[in-house]
């Protein structure tokens, strides 16, 4: 049995790879996502529409305009617009799932030379904001927040960095599923200070 468990551990992915709409990405934790992002914001989708890229004219893109409610990293301004490449045939019909009025916490990588950008780790850096029946705001990314906090404490300890007690508790207690939005944004702010 011990040998079997050892074999299973050996064969397990170092970090699980998540399938998205026609993509597979490796799991990244919140510290890695924060570092990888040029802009992190909480906002509401004002519009989302599909159109061809103005230069790479064979490529479909979705252009998303957000009203920024809170900035955690970068300087997105009061409204933030980004253009994301889409390759899946289904994305052409639902604007890659961005819906007017939907609240998101978005962790966006810097735009490329062609003005294209997307969330860090694709669905990993795209958190839907939900409310429970008490009105409490919760966040979940496209990977169910699985392994979102794995390895962060160890990395910070190695760097001699300590977080607030609340953030430390979040890192230690959460494994998968919805997370309190306020606790998440507080943590992201602290992490963003390391790599503004």
């Amino acid at each position, binding site marked *: 049995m011990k040998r*079997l468990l050892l074999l299973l551990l050996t*064969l*397990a*992915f170092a970090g*699980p*790879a998540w*399938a998205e*709409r*026609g*993509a*597979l*990405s*490796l*799991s*990244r934790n919140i510290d*890695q996502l924060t570092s*990888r992002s040029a802009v992190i914001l909480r906002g509401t989708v004002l*519009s*989302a*529409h*599909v159109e061809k*890229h103005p230069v*790479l004219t*064979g*490529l479909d893109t979705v252009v998303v305009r957000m009203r920024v409610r809170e900035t955690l990293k970068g300087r997105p301004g009061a409204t933030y617009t980004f*253009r*994301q*490449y889409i*390759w*899946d*045939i*289904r994305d052409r*019909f*639902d*604007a*890659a*799932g961005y*819906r*007017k009025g*939907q609240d998101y916490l978005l962790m966006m990588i810097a735009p*490329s*030379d*062609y003005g*294209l950008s997307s*969330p*860090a780790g*694709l*669905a990993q850096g*795209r958190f*839907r904001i*939900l409310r*429970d*029946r008490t009105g409490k705001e*919760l966040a*979940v990314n*496209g*990977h169910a927040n*699985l392994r979102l906090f794995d390895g962060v404490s160890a990395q910070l300890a190695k760097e001699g960095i300590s977080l607030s007690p609340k953030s430390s508790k979040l890192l230690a207690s959460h494994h998968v*599923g*919805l997370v309190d939005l306020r606790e998440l944004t507080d943590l992201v702010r602290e992490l963003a200070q390391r790599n503004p």
Partner: protein
Amino acid sequence: MRFVRGMASALGVSLGALLLPVNLAHAGGPLLVRDNGVPYVFSTAAPIPYRTDNGPLSATVTEATARSRVAGMFGVWEGVTTSSIAYARAGFVNATVAFTGGDVNTPDEFDAVQTDCGNGVQSPIVYDADASIFMALGIDETSVIGIAGPCAANATQFITSLAVMNGLFQDGAAAPVPDISTDEFDAALIHEFGHFSGLDHSQINVNCLGGCGPDDLTGLPTMFPVLLHVSQKSLSVDDIAWISRLYPQTTGGTTFANTHGTIAGTVFFSDGQSHAAYVNVIARPVDTGANQDRTAAVSVVSGYKFRAIRGNPINDNPTQFPPFGSLTPGDMGLFEIPVPAGSYTVEVESIDAGFSDGSGVGPVQIPMPGTAPAPSATIVVVAGGTNSGNDVTLIGTDPRFDQFEGP
């Protein structure tokens, strides 16, 4: 093989108190369904032609090696004896007006090749050796291993698909991203080639997200939304059943019809009349004592061929509504599960809350209302037959507003 006497997963119960918005993605089993309820597939009159990049996969993986590995990945799907799907390499990626041939390694060249794919001209497999294409496309090259999917279809069939592989994960360098193993990389792309061929995700043994035993790991489909284990490089019973259902082998000694049958039914709300769509339905084989086998299950989402409300409800472009899926009311809560002949129980569960947007399973993601009933009594399926009427009524769902909401 270990058998477990088990109950249906209680997933979704903890989410019952949340007001989740409808989320949009597409179907478990087939990736896309026509308006007559028939899944989109490639023609099998000839092997599906694909073309490979005439450049290296990475700094350490040559074009010849990459070509061989790609053939092996397609070979995993082609090796299903009950399916007629076949692939054939038609050569290197074709030159186009803006691409003169050779290695596809600039954004302009990729644009030209993607345009060709969108026009139904060729199905390219692009090796992005240094991830410069991913970077130009604004895709996080430090985490995305590959992308794939159909890019052109006519009224009845897929015509072309596209795949792009990120060579940074196979270049032998620790930076900017450490490599993953060859098996891990290939497992990821075998999954992507499932999408390339028209398959969507399947949710089976979702408890593995929180850790699970060897039987449950064995039962994880290659098309599960998460690759948790290298064993997913090999196809599960679910993967085999669905690729065979989409591309049935009809000739020779081992055909789909003489090995597989179908379990069908409808999922209802508590009133027993209103169809409940987007509930995950799993058929698990059982022994004579009704003990479940966790290693071999097949699933589908109720309403898998019904048209999802996938358009943006407040869309800037009202023409952007999906043309996919039937509008037949009887399809709304319908499930049809292709299974090897044998004895099964059927259980239902919610699609996991984390399987949203691109990692979605089924036409939309909403938590299953109410509570799952216990697994069904044993259902016997004979090869070539359909065991229908295996309806499931959810427990404790909200009442209808009025009788006109019924199907």
